[in-house]
């Protein structure tokens, strides 16, 4: 009895020592994860360099970010990501300490503290009608000792106090169709001009006293030719505009409140007509620029409305705004492309021929053209002016040029990733030299001794620092070759700018980047848009010497019937292997599960006319395809009409041009949702490359349930059309959410469930035989997550051993999608606290490891939640057997354990997506979350059961072994002695 109780005690002790370590220690940050912060393509930049102290530049970007950057290194001092609809219209610095931002179409004005980014005040501006919004921070304008900001938005001019955001006065511009163009401050007076067009042929000018908002003068003049687009301000009382045909330049002067037009046809300035012109908006005194086709012209405005062309160039050119440098002098920067170099010129506004600065800088071709230029000056030690220039490139990167060199650059294209895929790294070829091993052994031992010191708390602060740096450096981590565990891979990311980046999973550095030529604006393709990335060629068995490649699918414009573009990129080198501008459009891309002898994957592209096109266009591909011709099914979801259709291939195309890679298709089935009661808001299917390890699930009472695993399952969620809007505009009675599970081969609805009083947005993830979806419950006013698991009932009788023995089972019968298996579903719903931005599920190499849901919350964090919490078999009082199976007692809401945030204390600002890629090691999966920031980490949902953890102490193991050996000797000697004594007795 005593022995048994002792053993029990011992076992309990042993089990209790295996407490789960799900999360990270603080000193492990950066060991397996990396985090990169970006801001996006810069729209506007304001320098703040006058004061002593840290020099900075405040920028606003197309990702709705405002940020303060260190001008020396380009690092972020602070940054705020505004809401997705809160587009920034203008920024400026006021009083030298506040950053003023105007956003949301001119309705929100905020002030931020320049040193630390704390919001100081916020005010909302409203007005009678929609209009262009303009922000003006006048210099030296004070109302009752209060500096003011002038904002024109919604047809109203507001003067807002700089210190507290209060509106001091406002003035409506009721003129029905005033399209405001500029708000101009008169130098050396409190007058403000507002100029704009009305009724397309009327020029309007208002003169306003900025101290009280009084309208002093209102003049208007008609011009029969109409106006086109932008205007250029050439002095505080003169603007230049174009007529509606783009062929006549108008110089409009409103000096002293009198409007006068001067029209000069462009053909008078240049001999050859080059088509319609466009004004490049700028604000340089006396000079403006127009662009005609590829030619850029700089025109000087002489007195009396005379114009003179000062330069004509066919190089790509960008101009900055004017920068006042001293009394009455303005400088501006000009950047011209010439081959692989860019020429930076800084000129004075009144002196075109003299250059203040002329530099050539070698520029990486992969950055494309210069899109925007911002200039700033500093005073050199010899009291002359030096200039620094911030440029925004076509690939959205941001560079600072100073003294003929690039001081720093930021790859801000990575803030707008469209799609991500992964690629393997090359296999290591050379053997490792012996000397290296010896050196490594010594280092290794040293490292482990240090670690042991650390564990035993004997390490000095220097030692701790050494340990930390040693762990973070991880020489192995960022190697450019494949590893055993499959942790090192390339992340291939396609960005909005049409640039492809390869990031190393070890530390996130950019291995290569390539601006796709096929996504470059051209005659044939006016507005190229990148769509998706697909694995084109993944050599592993044969064709090992081929490099893997990816397929980039893009199209030439936003409409669905515009022609598509394919390009193929080598993932080792980043070279574009080729590109195709297609004659047909691309609506859907279906990667087929077949590869040819060079491991190129077959892809089927569906166009807007419902023809299917096979790629690659090789005879071999068509051979393979013909074999599987009748086994190819796909579906299409038409959100607008509420129809889901199933398709199948019919025959070769019957067009006028014979094309053996084109096929006609046939509609197989369709499901029409009644448009008055249901609207499709989400559809999700299983990942095609997902691996399922086991088809059955053994439940507590030794019973077996067979998972219904089909690649052709589709999850569809519909809501009442009234409830399709945002939360807060519908009552629970008039909103419902209906969820369907549909077989996409037969169109059979396997399961349908209605959630009354619920609405979208729905985020869902489908894996194995279950789907988890997140929606809003209006009755409880909380978010809910539901799980549906689907089981195959027709195979349930196979459990009978006798049937197995007698061969009466149906295990060997072929599984066809046309058979109608009897399925049962189990489902359950739980409350979940947060709104969602993205949801994904971990995937591992063999699918043995248990799954975790990766939930991107509204706070831009990624939470890992065990699938066990979303088990439909959870009950309030699980039986002993169920407890042993690992069923958690039922709770009404899902737990949020702070330690299971995979992003720990970091945020992935502007989170848009989470992808998971299996590593070769079964226990581990790689997680990549992207948005404005990027975050990567390794995750082991069931802990690393197949490898030693990083903090495993080898030294402790050695000590134990030594101790054991010593103990053996001691006991041996003792027993010898005892034996001797026994014999002497």
């Amino acid at each position: 009895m005593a022995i048994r109780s002792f053993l029990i005690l011992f076992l309990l002790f042993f089990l209790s020592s295996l407490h789960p370590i799900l999360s990270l220690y603080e000193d492990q940050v950066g060991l397996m994860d990396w985090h990169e912060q970006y801001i996006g393509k810069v729209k506007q930049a304001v320098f703040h360099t006058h004061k002593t102290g840290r020099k900075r530049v405040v920028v606003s970007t197309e990702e709705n970010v405002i940020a303060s950057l260190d001008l020396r290194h380009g690092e972020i001092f602070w940054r705020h990501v505004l809401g997705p609809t809160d587009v920034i219209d203008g920024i400026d610095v006021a009083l030298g300490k506040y950053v003023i931002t105007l956003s949301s179409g001119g309705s929100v004005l905020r002030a931020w503290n320049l040193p630390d980014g704390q919001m100081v005040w916020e005010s909302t501006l409203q007005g009678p009608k929609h209009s262009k919004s303009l922000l003006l921070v006048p210099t030296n304008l004070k109302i009752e000792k209060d500096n003011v900001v002038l904002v024109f938005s919604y047809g109203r001019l507001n003067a807002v106090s700089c210190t507290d955001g209060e509106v001091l006065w406002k003035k409506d511009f009721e003129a029905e169709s005033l399209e405001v163009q500029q708000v101009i401050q008169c130098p050396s007076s409190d007058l403000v001009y507002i100029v704009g067009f009305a009724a397309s042929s009327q020029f309007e000018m208002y003169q306003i006293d900025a101290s009280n908002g009084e309208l002093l003068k209102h003049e208007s003049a008609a011009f029969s030719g109409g106006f086109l687009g932008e205007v250029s301000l050439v002095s505080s009382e003169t603007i230049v505009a174009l007529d509606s045909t783009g062929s006549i330049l108008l110089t409009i002067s409103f000096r002293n409140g009198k409007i006068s037009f001067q029209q000069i046809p462009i053909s008078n300035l240049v001999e050859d007509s080059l088509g319609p012109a466009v004004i490049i908006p700028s604000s340089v005194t006396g000079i403006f620029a127009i662009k005609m086709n590829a030619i850029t012209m700089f025109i000087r405005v002489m007195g009396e409305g005379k114009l003179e062309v000062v330069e004509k160039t066919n190089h790509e050119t960008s101009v900055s705004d004017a920068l006042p440098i001293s009394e009455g002098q303005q400088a501006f920067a000009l950047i011209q492309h010439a081959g692989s170099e860019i020429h930076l010129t800084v000129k004075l506004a009144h002196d075109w021929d003299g250059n203040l600065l002329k530099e050539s800088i070698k520029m990486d071709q992969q950055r494309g053209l210069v899109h925007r230029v911002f200039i700033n000056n500093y005073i050199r030690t010899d009291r002359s002016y030096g200039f620094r220039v911030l440029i925004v490139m076509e690939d959205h990167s941001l560079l600072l040029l100073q003294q003929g060199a690039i001081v720093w650059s930021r790859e801000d294209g990575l803030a707008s990733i469209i799609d991500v895929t992964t690629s393997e790294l090359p296999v290591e070829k050379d053997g490792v030299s012996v000397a290296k091993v010896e050196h490594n052994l010594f280092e290794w031992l040293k490292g482990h001794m240090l670690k042991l010191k650390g564990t035993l708390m004997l390490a000095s602060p220097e030692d701790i620092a050494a340990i930390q740096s040693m762990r973070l450096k991880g020489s192995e981590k960022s190697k450019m070759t494949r590893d055993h565990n499959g942790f090192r891979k390339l992340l291939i990311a396609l960005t909005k700018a049409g640039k492809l980046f390869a990031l190393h999973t070890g530390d996130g550095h950019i291995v290569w980047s390539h601006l796709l030529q096929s996504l470059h604006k051209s005659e044939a393709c006016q507005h190229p848009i990148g769509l998706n990335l697909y694995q084109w060629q993944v050599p592993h068995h044969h064709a090992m010497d081929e490099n893997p490649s990816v397929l980039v699918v893009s199209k030439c414009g936003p409409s669905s019937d515009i022609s598509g573009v394919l390009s193929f990129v080598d993932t080792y080198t980043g070279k574009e292997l080729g590109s195709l501008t297609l004659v047909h459009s691309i609506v859907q891309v279906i990667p087929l599960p077949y590869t040819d002898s060079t491991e190129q994957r077959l892809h089927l592209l569906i166009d807007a006319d419902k023809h299917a096109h096979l790629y690659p266009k090789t005879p071999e591909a068509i051979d393979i395809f013909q074999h599987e011709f009748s086994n190819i099914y796909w579906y299409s979801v038409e959100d607008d009409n509420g129809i889901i259709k199933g398709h199948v291939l019919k025959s070769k195309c019957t067009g006028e041009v014979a094309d053996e890679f084109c096929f006609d298709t046939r509609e197989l089935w369709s499901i029409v949702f009644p448009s008055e009661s249901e609207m499709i808001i989400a559809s999700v299917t299983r990942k095609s490359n997902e691996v399922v390890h086991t088809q059955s699930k053994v439940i507590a009472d030794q019973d077996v349930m067979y998972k219904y695993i089909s690649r052709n399952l589709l999850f569809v969620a519909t809501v009442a059309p009234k409830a399709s809007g945002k939360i807060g505009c519908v009552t629970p009675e008039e909103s419902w959410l209906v969820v369907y599970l549909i077989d996409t081969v037969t169109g059979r609805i396997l399961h349908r469930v209605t959630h009354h009083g619920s609405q979208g947005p729905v985020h869902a993830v489908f894996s194995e035989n279950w789907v988890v979806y997140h929606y809003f419950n209006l009755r409880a006013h909380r978010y809910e997550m539901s799980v549906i698991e689907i089981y195959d009932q027709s195979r349930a009788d196979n459990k009978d051993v006798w049937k197995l023995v007698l061969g009466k089972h149906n295990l060997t019968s072929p599984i066809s999608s046309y058979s109608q298996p009897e399925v049962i579903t189990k489902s359950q719903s739980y409350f979940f606290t947060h709104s969602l931005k993205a949801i994904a599920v971990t995937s591992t190499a063999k699918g043995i490891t248990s799954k975790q849901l990766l939930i991107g919350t509204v706070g831009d964090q990624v939470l890992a939640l065990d699938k066990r919490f979303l088990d439909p078999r959870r009950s309030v009082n699980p039986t002993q057997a169920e407890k042993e199976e690992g069923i958690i007692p039922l709770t009404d809401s899902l737990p949020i354990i702070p330690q299971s945030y995979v992003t720990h204390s970091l945020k992935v600002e502007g989170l848009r997506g989470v992808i998971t890629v299996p590593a070769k090691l079964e226990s581990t999966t790689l997680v990549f979350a992207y948005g404005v920031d990027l975050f990567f980490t390794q995750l082991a949902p069931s802990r690393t059961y197949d490898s030693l953890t990083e903090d495993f102490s080898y030294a402790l193991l050695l000590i134990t072994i030594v101790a054991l050996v010593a103990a053996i000797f001691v006991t041996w000697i003792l027993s010898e002695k005892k034996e001797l004594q026994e014999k002497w007795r």
Partner: protein
Amino acid sequence: MALISRFLLLVLLFTALVVSSGSGDGFTINGRVKIPQGLGTKGFALPGRTSNIKVILNGGQNVTFLRPDGSFSFHNVPAGTHLIEVAAIGYFFSPVRVDVSARNPGKVQAALTENRRGLSELVLEPLRDEQYYEIREPFSIMSVVKSPMGLMVGFMLVVVFLMPKLVENMDPEEMRRAQEEMRNQGVPSLANLLPGGGRN
């Protein structure tokens, strides 16, 4: 009776002025985020540093930031029931349900959705602070003993030094009985050693 009076009290509390009808088509929700001093001193957001806290209306429809005193406001909000969430690293905030009534502007009901607690005024406080890292326990002899290697050594020592003693101290009678029992059971399985299975 007590229930009714409590209900009345709640209604009275709810009528505090949080919503004001603004000009234009919507209402304005004003509120404040309060982070108690002392909470989260070990956390990552420094106490009082509110510049990185976002307040989110209806799952991302509007996003706003905190003023230095912790106050925030949403403008042009239509009448209806809305959800406000606070995203702050280091703290767990419950989403708040806010009812903006069209009929009597100025009346508001706010309640935490996590625990259904009503709020008399829209002052949001974290329910708890969030610790994202495991705390590394300081080195103790127990942790070495508890590690697999420590257990190995420990078990060995027990078997070597304690087992003979146990066997020695046993009553020969009981010893025989134990041996008998063992023979009867055959191979001892782990299951009947466990509290649940070993009921014999």
